[in-house]
């Protein structure tokens, strides 16, 4: 609301209204939180005391602080996957360097250490993203792996000591019985943000997030702004790490990792738009507390364990929907459009009701032979220069990795077994890359991949139960279910206007609950002999699935490169409005894209069931981040519109070959994680964006 003071000298009523509109996301998040608090209070046995409030405030503080940092990154148009890893790192650094014998610990010193570590990581991220112009998602993903390794080097198991003084300070009361300290800490960070927002830097931040090119054109130093954003965000994660250290009084190398996904949900529920330029950290704080208080709601309502992820997913969708209730929301627009269509249909003037005459513009088009005379068809490498520039680096790195493997481990290049293993192990990600890649090409993201894989595998194994004949109906059933999942994702995104991250995250939770309910916790059944043969047998030198992969790759390239569907996908990714105005059925295409992604995930679920011989809960959990990473390593732009399937395939092969190399060594896991991150970072160095003109 401080922005109201800055608004032009209009009447105060208009100013207030503008401020309300501008902060609508945050206000609605606050209202949702208030309602949830009220529900908790109403249903639980005793009244909500100061103690409850104090405890709730400390429970959500870590995610709130970290999510503030994430919000600032997202406002600048970026994305930071290293946030959770920074929290873990700060936690173990503090826990391993504090002396249990020393009496009293300097709160200021250790807070500064935590924030300093976070900012140092932020500077690392910022250097690669801002100065070397690399894509945030892949830089921060590499950082995440590197930090996870470093964290394990600092402390390889839970333990250590964090002075209770820190806990007394951060979890205590600022004003006894009235104001808990965590809220004060968050308040100070928010005040700092308001100060920052009022400065030139704040304006530049929003400008860069809205449109980096225009920002550069008006003289903003985009590199400096971007760099500073990651450093500031790193400081926020560092503070969150200090807070969780104070809260737990010890170190745990895994403590921060699971905070990552919910952080994005907090940002979006709080009204900040992914892609940048709109929203702010205040809403995020409410978003973080909304996600946290769900725990209490599930408890007071006594929601059974198997239903809890379903309930959480539903709450997430409802919160996001509540945030979009307005005249201009997607849902309202779609409803108005539907009404207009209905009216047109009654009046008989819908395009499909009119007589079919070709109303396309007639543009004089030179005949093919004429063109070849006027301008010769450019050579292949010129025609595809853009694609080659972004797809080739992955293949070059792949060759380097294979050569290194040959030198280090031997028995590689001339060993058909190596190549077969590489292709079989790549096949899962290669299929996922088409689905996730197509979603990313339209500027979205599909986080429901893990449990779409899981539930598909579980349903298939349960139906097949070792019988080849059962595949005949089990396969279509599973694929149909996947279509329904994808349709639900697409429907929520297109017609309800829910952001892809929130929608697919919610779907993932709901699917997890469904998988647990369906299997009662123990997935029954196993893969049929034919499916197992398909994934594990050898036909001469190759496994049958490799042959399918070749067909799949050709089909994928044709789908994205040679069909109207593929052209629509690229069109939407390059500009939603332009695509809509040029007559692309954006809604239908997007729904199809999410259906494609779900079907690809289901195919992976089927393949994994064949590969392992059985389905297990959580079998898809390890495929979410890699599915995004390979797409980006393969040269696609995370914001959509650019990328080629062959590049993504190169990314798949590169990452798989790298993992095979590391698995063949006897290096400790921590070292492997660091190497993995460094190689990915090096591989995408070639994908740097061109300098802004």
């Amino acid at each position, binding site marked *: 609301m401080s922005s109201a003071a800055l608004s032009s000298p209009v009447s105060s009523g208009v100013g207030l209204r503008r401020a309300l509109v501008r902060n609508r996301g945050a206000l609605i998040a606050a209202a949702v939180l208030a309602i949830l608090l009220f529900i908790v209070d109403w249903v639980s046995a005793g009244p909500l005391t100061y103690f409850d409030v104090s405890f709730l405030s400390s429970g959500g503080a870590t995610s709130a602080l970290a999510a503030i940092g994430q919000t600032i990154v997202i406002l600048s148009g970026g994305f930071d996957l290293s946030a959770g890893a920074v929290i873990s790192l700060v936690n173990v650094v503090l826990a391993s360097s504090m002396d249990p014998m020393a009496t009293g610990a300097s709160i200021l010193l250790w807070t500064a250490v935590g924030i300093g570590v976070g900012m140092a990581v932020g500077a690392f991220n910022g250097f690669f993203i801002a100065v070397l112009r690399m894509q945030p998602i892949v830089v921060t993903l590499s950082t995440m792996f590197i930090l996870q390794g470093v964290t394990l080097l600092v402390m*390889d198991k839970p333990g250590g000591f964090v002075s209770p003084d820190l806990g007394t300070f951060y979890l205590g009361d600022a004003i006894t019985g009235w104001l808990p300290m965590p809220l004060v800490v968050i308040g100070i960070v928010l005040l700092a943000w308001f100060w920052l927002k009022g400065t030139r830097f704040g304006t530049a931040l929003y400008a860069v997030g809205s449109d980096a090119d225009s920002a550069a054109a008006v003289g903003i130093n985009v590199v400096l702004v971007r760099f500073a954003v990651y450093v500031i965000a790193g400081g926020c994660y560092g503070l969150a790490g200090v807070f969780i250290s104070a809260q*737990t009084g010890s170190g745990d190398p895994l403590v921060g990792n699971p905070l990552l996904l919910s952080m994005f949900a907090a940002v979006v529920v709080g009204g900040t738009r992914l892609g940048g330029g709109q929203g702010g950290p205040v809403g995020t704080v409410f978003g973080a507390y909304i996600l946290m208080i769900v725990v209490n709601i599930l*408890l*007071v309502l006594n929601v059974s*364990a198997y239903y809890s992820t379903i309930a959480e997913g539903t709450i997430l969708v409802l919160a996001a929907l509540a945030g979009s209730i307005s005249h201009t929301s997607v849902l309202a627009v779609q409803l108005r459009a539907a009404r207009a269509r209905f009216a047109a249909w009654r009046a008989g003037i819908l395009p499909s009701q009119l007589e079919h005459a070709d109303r396309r513009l007639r543009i004089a088009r030179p005949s093919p032979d004429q063109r070849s005379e006027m301008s010769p068809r450019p050579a292949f490498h010129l025609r595809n220069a853009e694609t080659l520039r972004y797809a080739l680096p992955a293949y070059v790195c792949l060759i380097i990795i294979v050569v290194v493997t040959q030198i280090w481990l031997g028995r590689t290049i001339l060993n058909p077994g190596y190549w077969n293993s590489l292709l079989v192990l790549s096949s899962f990600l290669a299929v996922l890359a088409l689905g996730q890649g197509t979603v990313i090409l339209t500027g979205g993201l599909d986080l429901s991949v893990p449990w779409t894989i899981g539930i598909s595998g579980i349903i298939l194994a349960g139906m097949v139960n070792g019988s080849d004949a059962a595949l005949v109906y089990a396969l279509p059933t599973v694929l149909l279910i996947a279509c329904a999942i994808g349709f639900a994702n697409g429907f929520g995104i297109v017609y309800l206007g829910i952001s892809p991250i929130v929608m697919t995250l919610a779907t993932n939770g709901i699917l997890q609950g469904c998988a647990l309910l369906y299997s009662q916790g*123990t997935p029954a059944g196993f893969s049929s002999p034919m499916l197992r043969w398909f994934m594990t047998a050898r036909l001469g030198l190759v496994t049958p699935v490799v042959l399918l992969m070749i067909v799949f790759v050709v089909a994928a390239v044709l789908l994205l490169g040679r069909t109207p569907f593929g052209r629509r996908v690229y069109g939407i990714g390059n500009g939603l409005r332009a695509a809509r105005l040029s007559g692309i059925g954006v809604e239908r295409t997007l729904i199809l894209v999410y259906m494609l992604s779900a079907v690809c995930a289901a195919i992976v679920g089927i393949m994994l069931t064949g590969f392992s*011989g059985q389905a297990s809960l959580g079998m898809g959990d*390890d495929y979410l981040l890699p599915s995004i990473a390979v797409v980006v390593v393969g040269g696609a732009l995370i914001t959509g519109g650019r990328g080629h399937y062959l590049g993504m395939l190169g990314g798949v092969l590169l990452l798989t070959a790298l993992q095979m190399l590391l698995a063949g060594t006897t290096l400790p896991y921590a070292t492997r994680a660091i190497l993995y991150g460094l190689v990915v970072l090096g591989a995408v160095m070639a994908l740097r964006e061109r300098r802004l003109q």
Partner: protein
Amino acid sequence: MGIGLKVRRLTLLAGMAACAFSLSAAQAAEKHKIFLSMSYIGNDWQAEAANMVKAVAAHKSLVDKVDLQVQVAGPNAQRQIQQINAMVQSGAKAIVVYPISPTALNQVVKNACDKGVKVFAYDAEITEPCAYNVHIDQLEAGRVTAEWLAKKLNGKGNIIAITGVPGTSVDDQRTKAAKEVFAKYPDIKIVGEAVGMWSQAVARTELSKILATRNWDDINGLWMQVGCFTANSMQLEAGKKTSELLPCAGEGSNGGRIQMLPEGTEVEGAASPYAPLGAQRISYASPPYSGALALKLAVEAIEGKDVAKTTILPLPIVTSETIKLCDEGSWAEMKAGCNAFKPSLVSNPGWFASIFSDQTPEIGLAAALVGQPEE
């Protein structure tokens, strides 16, 4: 719009609540209110453990005493902290918890203890001294299995090690203890090591990666926290005969147990590789009944009985010599010594078969599968 508004809102709500009619908590006075706080339930072990806790609470000896509520915290320690606190607030007498972290919960657990709530951790440990812990000795698990393998190999050979989730105490203790044993045998070399995440599926991908540049013939033995079942399947796919399967020290999955039965044993529902192969194995497990036992102990503690702070469960060890197939899987039958279940009863080979305890006659196979207690 800052912190002030939010605090005002909170105090307002608190004020409204104070005026509101609050429900009496006395209605549940007959039963002990006990909460189960699970971590992530997206894997087989957790779901099985949850089934067994529910079953023991539904057994006729406890059903009138216990009001059990099950909640899930997911993989996030922060949420478990908040969840435990909410449980304390809503009047828990005891909290049975699968701790996501052995250390992160210390403060909240201490807070719960101060309010007279008994906190029982199962499978993994909580280091806060006031908590009760029910688990196996992980060091022993690593040591015993490594010693078995070293003996099988006559102190000589190349082995592959597949570990658990890096950064956890359980994995750290098992792996360290095993490596200490292997270090005593200079001729035993760990030629490949990978992180298996305690999952058969991950074990398979990791083994596939290692074997891309190696041959099964170069390897003499396997030490895996989870994955022997998969490793045996992979060796058969690679054309090995059942008599040539490598000795494997590993987990207590039912699939692995069935493979340990002598080749040719008649087993209902068996189909290769989930079939008797005569595999040379030592099978150990962190038994999934630990949660159920923790619940029983919690009731005893509430009733004022003396309960030890740490209950170390006997390490369930089954070798190719002691493997025995169960007929029905009742507790009485398991007491008589059977330790593997027919695939027709347990269709998932990854299911954990170490469900027998002397101390839990309330639960048998039906408890682990569907949460149904024994008669």
